[in-house]
């Protein structure tokens, strides 16, 4: 049904999307919680900074990534020499680009879900000898689950559609960084490429569709598990 190169593009998109989601998960949940529950001087600034990748045209964070994480960049060289990881023009860079762009989505949904948790439940756990950290992972975190799930869906989806930062940071290299959006971009630029582009768009839609169905199923499970849905 799909050609080899289409499989390649699809597989790469899925890979980049999953990794980006994973990468965003922990820090996203942490910062979301921090913004919702803690008050500190620098909070508005921190929040604004965390939000930046969302507000800027994707090419700008893409460019900054290139400067910092590129083969000439400080961090890029650090990773290269110490961990032998390269980002520029590389699928790992595509993950990084998607993760940076989509990160605010995880933070904000996590924050919203914490805001809506009744603080008194955390206090109750506290009176049962649970340290703040235990309260966090045994009460706050599970109750954040719907938010974390929706956040993950948003991040994954945003990654699937990420174009600007990816092409700026890692270029359009078949098999390495050519995710669905980049493949579609390439296709629409060649004459008679419309058919290819339409195929790719259909693949993208179908793939997104099934990912969403799957995540919906998961969300329902989680809700039932949380005892949120009362008969």
């Amino acid at each position, binding site marked *: 049904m799909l050609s080899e190169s289409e499989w390649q593009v699809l597989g790469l998109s899925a890979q980049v999307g999953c990794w980006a989601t994973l990468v965003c998960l922990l820090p996203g949940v942490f910062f979301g919680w921090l913004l919702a529950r803690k008050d500190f001087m620098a909070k508005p600034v921190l929040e604004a900074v965390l939000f930046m990748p969302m507000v800027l045209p994707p090419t700008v964070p893409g460019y900054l990534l290139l400067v910092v994480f590129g083969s000439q960049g400080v961090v890029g060289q650090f990773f290269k020499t110490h961990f032998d990881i390269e980002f520029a023009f590389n699928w790992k860079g595509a993950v990084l680009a998607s993760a940076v762009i989509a990160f605010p989505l995880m933070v904000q949904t996590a924050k919203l879900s914490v805001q809506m948790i009744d603080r008194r439940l955390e206090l109750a756990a*506290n009176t049962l000898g649970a340290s703040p950290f235990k309260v966090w992972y045994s009460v706050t975190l599970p109750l954040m689950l719907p938010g974390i799930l929706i956040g993950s869906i948003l991040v994954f989806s945003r990654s699937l559609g990420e174009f600007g930062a990816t092409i700026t940071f890692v270029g359009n290299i078949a098999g390495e960084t050519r995710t669905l959006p980049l493949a579609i971009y390439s296709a629409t630029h060649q004459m008679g490429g419309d058919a290819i582009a339409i195929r790719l768009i259909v693949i993208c839609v179908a793939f997104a569709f099934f990912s969403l169905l799957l995540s919906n199923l998961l969300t329902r499970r989680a809700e039932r598990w949380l005892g949120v849905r009362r008969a």
Partner: protein
Amino acid sequence: MLEIDVEYQRDQFSLRAQQAISAPITGILGASGSGKSTLLALIAGLLKPGRGQLRLNGKTLCDIQQRIWVPPYRRHIGLVFQDGQLLPHLSVRSNLLYGFNNIAPGQRRFAFGKVVELLEVGALLERKPATLSGGEKQRVALGRAVLYSPELLLLDEPLSALDERLKQQILPFFLRIYAECKIPMVYVTHALSELEFLTTHRLVVRDGHLLPDA
């Protein structure tokens, strides 16, 4: 021995409490909104007094002047909330075991099965709190605090939603908690009959003050 000497202020409401409590069970009475739940929250460490200090068995829990503050999870004081506050994502069993698992096995003074039996919650263990009746929730909240085997147990109207038969079954249990495990209790209620059964030592919260009951 619980030594209370605190002042607390919130909007127009203020509470002044200066009492040493050493009775096995101390009853707290007071009109609706007089500050009984606030007092328990202060003892448990959920609220910080504006001034004063708190000492439990010689250990300072809080001393505003000396900036001593033991957080609630280190006080080892159990609190049965007036409105239950069961953890909605955990089963009844996990709610009951939540505090139980936070203490060392050697410190545990109640058997899980015994408490479950006494409170008649055996049939509910796998259910989620959202599916419990009012009285069932109250019993789980009570069991959860008791299984934590605290050094001091604060009870905020723990039997208000229970029928006569359950009340008569659980009341003697409070006496046993002290007799067998030496856990003192502070017991807030509006039901004089409960206090008559449990204790002769009573305090009352009136006009923002904690006073011996006249």
